[in-house]
């Protein structure tokens, strides 16, 4: 913004001059000066603000608003209540403001120990306001609890309790509580009278965020933005430069994953091995260790959320658990369907060694089953850990089962009801309370573990694989005709925590959407009669973006895409035309199309903490890492 250019000639002091400022004529001159005065006062330059008021003839706020504000901050609620009709918008809104002020007064009296006065406030001033009985009762109940717990659900933030705290801590606490109250009251007051706190900073931050949002290539951990120039960054922050070519595998590589702490990477290949690498901070893969070498292909690898354990699934229906630090195998699980389970586990129970058990299970599977469906039904389709790093979900064609990592054997902890006849892929939401699965019915099913509520999102075609961003908001679904659909899930959906521990019976509390900023907001919404919305009721009906690769030809293979980068801003996916595609997650436009592989790219993984590192696994037996030019600069 350049210096203000008034469109009218300069008038003398004392007269309020109206005019429009800014290159586009959008800014009102008087409001601009008032916001500047508030900003000066916020910075502590009271005299400068007063001088500006005198020179321009524009006051920051009318005296009644200033008096109201200082009354609230000083805790003089009676004075504030008297001034309320002059500053409040209209009847119902003023009632809400009155309630907030009286409640703050009640709570302060109570915390100071003046219970008689507090009760007086409750009876004579709060009661006539016709608030909900429930609210009055909860306020009265606060009196019954000890002062230490009195701040639960009240306007004041979490406190250690009035008893035992020094007076300075108490003063600080009161100041914070009153500032929070003022912010809450802002909704009820006319903004033209009382300017919202820190308004100029808020406006500048909005402009900066808008610049960030409009830049499709922003991919950096640094968040310092200059006010002097508009934010612009090009493709140098995208991982487009080929880095290492890792040829540890002798055959097609089917899966690749990074650990959540970013220190390890693992890959699974058709040659039957799973290899573990350590990843340096500069993005180099080093010291590969072959974890297992089986005659059957290894399909999937999955790191536990605490990055200490690794699961590898092989096509002999077994899942092996490894310790990441030492690389040793800890345990082996045999995955079987409920119908084929009896035959397989009976045969496997006798086998002692790993090879023997795998061979016995395969033999029992092929001999015992008549149709190919039963044997195929034991193939592991998906592996996903729960956040406690102890339980994991295994999806076979016929169903979903939860295993305990610390118990060996083939008996799952629990089998989950499945919305599909055949499951193609499944994963656990980051909170552990929700499971997302896709199957033959061309729908994405979300199952909440606490009450087993299932909601489905219809898709336009069969979904081969799904991937969830680390923040839990964005789901990518690969369709069988080289399309990737990006779905935006409502907040709080996958973050909901399920029932903790071993018992799944107790229903967990639903997260309120949007989450309340402080207890006062929760109390206020109770007054307004609002109820918590279940995120399962607000599922999207159409994908946010439809991303095409390789000309949207039907693809024969399971391709895995991923969401990653700073703020989950990018979607990366490989296609059968041997090229790696990178799209912007915000706008859906194709940013880069990289071609170095000589085989179909089966899986991609974005490094969780280093947004400039991307890895791709391909049918040509190599894993390639991609680095951003910004990372390669000295």
């Amino acid at each position, binding site marked *: 913004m350049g210096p203000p250019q008034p469109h009218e000639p300069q008038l003398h002091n004392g007269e309020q001059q109206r005019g429009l400022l800014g290159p586009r004529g959008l800014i009102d001159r008087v409001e601009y000066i008032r916001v500047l005065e508030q900003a000066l006062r916020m910075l502590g330059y009271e005299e400068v603000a007063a001088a500006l008021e005198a020179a321009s003839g524009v006051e920051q706020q009318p005296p009644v608003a200033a008096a109201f504000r200082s009354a609230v901050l000083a805790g003089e609620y009676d004075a504030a209540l008297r001034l309320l009709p002059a500053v409040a918008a209209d009847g119902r809104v003023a009632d809400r403001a009155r309630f907030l002020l009286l409640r703050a007064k009640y709570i302060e009296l109570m915390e100071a120990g003046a219970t008689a006065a507090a009760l007086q406030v409750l009876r004579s001033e709060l009661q006539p306001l016709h608030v909900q009985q429930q609210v009055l009762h909860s306020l009265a109940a606060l009196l019954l609890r000890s002062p230490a717990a009195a701040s639960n659900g009240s306007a004041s933030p979490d406190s250690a309790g009035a008893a035992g705290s020094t007076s300075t801590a108490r003063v600080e606490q009161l100041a914070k509580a009153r500032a929070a109250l003022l912010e809450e009251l802002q909704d009820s007051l006319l903004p033209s009278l009382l300017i919202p706190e820190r308004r100029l900073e808020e406006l500048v931050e909005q402009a900066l965020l808008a610049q960030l949002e409009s830049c499709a290539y922003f991919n950096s951990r640094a968040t310092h933005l200059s006010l002097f120039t508009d934010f612009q960054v090009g493709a140098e922050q995208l991982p487009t430069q080929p880095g290492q070519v890792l040829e540890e595998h002798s055959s*097609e590589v*089917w899966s690749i994953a990074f650990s959540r702490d970013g220190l390890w990477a693992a890959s699974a290949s058709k040659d039957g091995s799973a290899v573990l690498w350590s990843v340096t901070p500069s993005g180099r893969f080093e010291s590969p260790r072959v974890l297992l070498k089986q005659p059957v292909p290894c*399909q999937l690898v999955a790191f536990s959320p605490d990055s200490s354990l690794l699961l590898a699934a092989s096509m002999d229906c077994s899942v092996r658990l490894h310790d990441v630090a030492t690389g040793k195998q800890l345990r082996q699980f045999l995955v079987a369907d409920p119908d084929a389970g009896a035959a397989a586990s009976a045969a496997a129970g006798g086998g002692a060694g790993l090879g023997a058990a795998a061979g016995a299970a395969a033999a029992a599977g092929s001999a015992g089953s008549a*149709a*190919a*469906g039963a044997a*195929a039904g034991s193939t592991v389709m998906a592996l996903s850990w729960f956040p406690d790093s102890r339980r994991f979900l295994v999806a076979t*064609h016929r169903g979903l089962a939860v295993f305990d990592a610390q118990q060996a054997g083939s008996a799952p902890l629990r089998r989950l009801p499945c919305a599909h*006849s*055949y499951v*193609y892929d499944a994963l656990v939401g980051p909170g552990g309370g929700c499971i997302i699965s896709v199957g*033959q*019915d061309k729908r994405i099913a979300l199952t909440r573990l606490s009450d087993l509520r299932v909601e489905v999102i219809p898709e336009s075609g*069969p979904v*081969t694989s799904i991937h969830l961003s680390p923040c839990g908001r964005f789901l990518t679904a690969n369709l*069988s005709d080289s399309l990737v659909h990006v779905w935006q899930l409502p907040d709080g959906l996958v973050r909901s925590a399920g029932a903790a521990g071993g018992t799944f019976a107790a229903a967990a509390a639903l997260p309120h959407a949007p989450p309340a900023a402080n207890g006062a907001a929760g109390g206020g919404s109770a007054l307004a009669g609002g109820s918590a919305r279940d995120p399962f009721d607000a599922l999207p009906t159409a994908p946010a973006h439809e991303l095409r690769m390789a000309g949207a030809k*039907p*693809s*024969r*293979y*399971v*391709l895995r895409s991923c969401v990653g980068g700073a703020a989950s801003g990018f979607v990366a996916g490989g296609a*059968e035309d041997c090229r790696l595609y990178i799209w912007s997650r915000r706008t859906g436009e194709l940013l880069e199309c990289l071609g170095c592989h000589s*085989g*179909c790219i*089966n899986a991609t993984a974005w490094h969780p903490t280093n947004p400039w590192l991307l890895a791709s696994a391909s*049918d040509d037996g190599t894993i390639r890492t991609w680095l951003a030019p910004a990372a390669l600069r000295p």
Partner: protein
Amino acid sequence: MGILFKQYLSGDKIYTCSQCKTHCTEHSQLISKAFQGRHGRAYLFSDVVNITVGPREDRMLITGLHTVADIYCITCNSVLGWKYEVAYEESQKYKEGKFILEKAKVMKEGSW
């Protein structure tokens, strides 16, 4: 080459490839049984899954000239039939975009 994506059908009566038992189509997709293929009887279906479509070619069939493309099972690559791409006579236009599966190349699975 990669993990092959095999779709599964969940109906009661399913037709599968006779060699590898991969699901192809369901009874609900059947349009007509009165066709002749290279190896005898053939059925017309509206939609078939788990196949790859080969190159187009013009072929003179019993009912006239058509542009067809052979279809192959994705698992074992055996020829299951063909897909009608273009029909040159008005009376044959209903076949466009539909699939022929030869009876000798498919098996029935499920409860018949």
